[in-house]
């Protein structure tokens, strides 16, 4: 009883009350001003960019995160533990530092001659950087625990390595991949620090939702900032809800 009460208070202070305050703030001007705030062309462009870039990034993460986890678990190579540690670097770096790092390498005067600063490619790049660990770290433990004899059984039944991957390995990893994707999604939708330097925050071009919200706050337009925040929050909740439903369906028979 005490535990539940504490949990309620803790969650209220940290999550529920701030969200309620956000909702209240966003509706101070009534529905018409809420609607105006989220349908302004700049806001629409920023939200669209955020959602599209995030969608692309999580798909890339799903593929490469799984691949990296696979190599880290199944292959032996010198320096493996170093590579394993590097995966967590984006976690360890303050995101603004991540922005500086990316700008140094892929910005003006790039040592490798690639300058993507102030382009949409930079948005994708920065999001990929900060979301790298999520799929890797959710797939890795599941792959470690995966019963290798399942794959041996499949191949002794005549399955080639492609079939084993498609019908045995991937279905077993799917819930973990999806949960990594959900984490990546949540992170990418709200990412700010790593983007703010390298994207240049050009309205209609490289300005993402979080940066747009920041701009509105700077301009003392708090209700508009809150309205766009609510929209992003809703989008995130819907996507996370769908992913968690799918993941639950997929893993319902596996313990």
């Amino acid at each position, binding site marked *: 009883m005490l535990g539940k009460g504490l949990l309620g208070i803790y969650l209220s202070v940290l999550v529920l009350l701030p969200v309620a305050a956000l909702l209240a703030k966003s509706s101070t001007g009534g529905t018409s001003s809420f609607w105006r705030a989220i349908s302004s062309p700049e806001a629409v462009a920023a939200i669209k960019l955020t959602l599209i870039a995030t969608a692309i990034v999580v798909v890339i993460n799903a593929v490469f995160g799984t691949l990296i986890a696979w190599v880290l678990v199944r292959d032996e190579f010198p320096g493996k533990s170093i590579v394993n540690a590097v995966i967590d670097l984006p976690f360890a770096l303050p995101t603004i530092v991540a922005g500086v790092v990316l700008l140094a390498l892929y910005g003006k005067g790039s040592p490798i001659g690639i300058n993507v600063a102030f382009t949409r490619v930079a948005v994708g790049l920065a999001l990929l950087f900060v979301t790298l660990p999520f799929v890797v770290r959710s797939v890795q433990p599941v792959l470690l625990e995966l*019963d290798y*004899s*399942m794959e*041996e*059984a*499949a*191949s*002794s*039944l*005549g*399955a*080639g390595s492609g*079939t084993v991957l498609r*019908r*045995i390995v991937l*279905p*077993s990893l799917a819930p973990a991949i999806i949960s990594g994707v959900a984490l990546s999604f949540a992170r990418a939708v709200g990412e700010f620090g790593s983007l703010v330097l390298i994207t240049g925050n050009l309205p209609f071009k490289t300005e993402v939702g979080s940066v747009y919200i920041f701009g509105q706050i700077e301009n003392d337009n708090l209700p508009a900032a809150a309205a766009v925040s609510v929209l992003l929050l809703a989008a995130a909740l819907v996507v996370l809800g769908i992913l968690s439903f799918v993941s639950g369906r*997929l893993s319902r*028979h*596996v*313990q």
Partner: protein
Amino acid sequence: MAIEARNVGKRFGDFVALDDVSLTVGDGALTALLGPSGSGKSTLLRIIAGLETPDTGEVVIGGEDVTSAPARTRGVGFVFQHYAPFKHMNVHDNVAFGLSVRKRPKDEISARVAELLALVRLDGLAARYPSQLSGGQLQRMALARALAVQPQVLLLDEPFGALDAQVRAELRDWLRRLHEEIHVTTIFVTHDQEEAMEVAEQIVVMNHGRIEQAGAPRTLYEAPSNEFVMSFIGPVNRLGDAYVRPHDIQLLADSDGTGTEALVERVVHLGFEVRVELKLSDGRGVWAQVTREEAQLLELQVGQILSVRLPPPRVFV
């Protein structure tokens, strides 16, 4: 299909799992690979299945050298120790897997799956998932899955190891009857000598990566070729360098001058069998196996002095 392993060797790092092992299993035979853990029996089974590559030697199945052939082309049905169920598939899809990989028509697959589920007495459970099955049911599902593709050879790795005693006894009996029905060449690995004796037509005793002796269960019991086989198959008393079977020890109530005196230290009643722990007059301990009737006749009790007649002991050099 006959199976032959010729001079097979396998190391894992410094550990020699198999040391120049040669083995022949006749077409349609039911063979047990018997040995303690680490004896190389599972490795040999996995090499025959193609799940492990030997460092040296050849594997021949049905006259064809398959040493370098991958597992999926060997036509071998393999049942894993922990069954390796496909956890995300239901029983039907598990059993159908090999057939669907071979792209057989849907109606053929469902007919065959139904037939196999009846054979392993899992009819009615086709829609269940592995997490909803008991150990014995998982075992039978794994067997049906392996049999679905009509393998020429059936290999089972510790098939009953993880089951409780009653289910184990039932499945042993059932495996033997199944073998009589479908006559596929079968090899199973076990560390349980009783299981090997009860099920197999031929037993191959392995130890430290080598084959100690291969033969019919009775031959191994009655004419073991070395002390390892003697002590691994059947109960045994060790007296110095000599070995004596406990049921060959005769107990006499009155000394007739031909036996030695012994003190009864413990009497264990196991139903028909009674186990008697004795201390011989020279201080050595042995145990004897007598029937319930004999025990009653001798009025066995702890502290009693008996006369014991030992059979000519077997000595291996």
